[in-house]
């Protein structure tokens, strides 16, 4: 039965509308090590929803400006490079997942966890020589399969979350038990359908259990970042317990515990500052 459900879910994903071209362009642009902000502004201007959100945030009391911000260019100056990156990425993707009365995932907590994983991934990437912005994007989107399942298959998700609560297990274990697939497989299938960059597709599918034989550093980075954030209690990933750090991943990355200790205050500070921008 659950094999049929899995087949149904993965089949339905292929029927979803493709990601708007503007979003694909944005994701590709934001993954680059040095973002061309003129180009970025041009892309943002093509999306009225994103433009209005950008202006609304730049004009909010959070930034305390005495004058009104009226243009994308000015908003970019007010918000700063890093916030624009987070806002664009989060807004573009989250808008693809309609909210329903039956949704069981606390989206704000999940985004907080995603943001924490993104910030942590960026810190780890700086240590292990991976492109930090690529790691940030991968961290931010690593769990987007959960959003997809909750948005499109929420009938199953209340049973799944109940299973997690009762068994204190991982969400992916409950998902496989009840619907025969999990958010990583769903996320990877959707990322492929939406033409996400190859590295991102691979990470979304593998970060939970990175391969021992075929190492993929970006998946390793997000694996460690995800677990650090769950252990630190940043947001809520939906799991009933913390996943266990993989020994072979830890050895491959060669991170020191002192490095982890140094990044913890930075993770909490960045999340508190930036959650406003994406929530």
């Amino acid at each position, binding site marked *: 039965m659950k094999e049929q459900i899995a087949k149904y879910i993965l089949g339905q994903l292929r029927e979803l509308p493709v990601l708007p071209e503007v979003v694909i362009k944005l994701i590709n642009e934001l993954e680059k090590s040095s973002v061309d902000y003129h180009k970025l502004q041009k892309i943002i201007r093509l999306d009225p929803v994103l433009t209005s959100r950008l202006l609304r945030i730049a004009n909010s009391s959070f930034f305390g400006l005495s004058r009104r911000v009226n243009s994308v260019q000015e908003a970019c100056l007010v918000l700063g490079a890093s916030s624009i990156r987070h806002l664009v990425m989060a807004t573009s993707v989250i808008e693809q997942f309609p909210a329903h009365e039956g949704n069981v995932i606390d989206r704000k907590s999940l985004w907080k966890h995603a943001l924490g994983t993104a910030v942590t991934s960026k810190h780890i990437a700086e240590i292990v020589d991976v492109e930090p912005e690529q790691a940030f994007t991968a961290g931010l989107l690593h769990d987007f399969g959960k959003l997809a399942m909750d948005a499109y298959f929420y009938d199953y998700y209340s049973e799944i979350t109940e299973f997690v609560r009762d068994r204190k297990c991982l969400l992916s274990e409950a998902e496989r038990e009840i619907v025969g697939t999990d958010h990583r497989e769903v996320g990877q299938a959707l990322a492929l359908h939406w033409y996400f960059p190859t590295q991102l597709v691979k990470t979304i599918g593998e970060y939970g259990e990175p391969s021992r034989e075929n190492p993929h550093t970006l998946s390793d980075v997000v694996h460690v970042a995800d677990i650090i954030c769950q*252990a630190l209690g940043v947001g809520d990933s939906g799991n009933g317990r913390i996943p*266990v*750090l993989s*020994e072979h991943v830890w050895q491959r990355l060669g991170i020191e515990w002192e490095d982890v200790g140094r990044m913890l205050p930075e993770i909490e500070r960045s999340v508190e500052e930036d959650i406003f921008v994406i929530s």
Partner: protein
Amino acid sequence: MIESQKMMMNIEEVSKGMVLSGDVCTESGECIFVSGTEVTEKTIEKAKDMGIDCVSVEWPEALLDGVAIVQNSAVEDELNDRFSGVLNYPLMNQLYLTIKKYKMNKLQ
């Protein structure tokens, strides 16, 4: 050790052992308690009778130490609960210790 701390507090939350860090005056300007007075149940009662809503108090170090112990224990309980079932894995044990050290330092 946490240094003593001054704060404005609602009279309902003030408890004995705290020390007033400012004069307490009525609306007409009459001073009913001077700064440095140790709060007792009678002080609280009189302040309420005189219609005082808020007072400036100082938490003595001894009281703050008590708060710190409770906070430390709450952090430890939360972490133990979160790491339940995974502490027998050496890496998870190390992660637990790293986060615990950070959280405890943050409280001080």
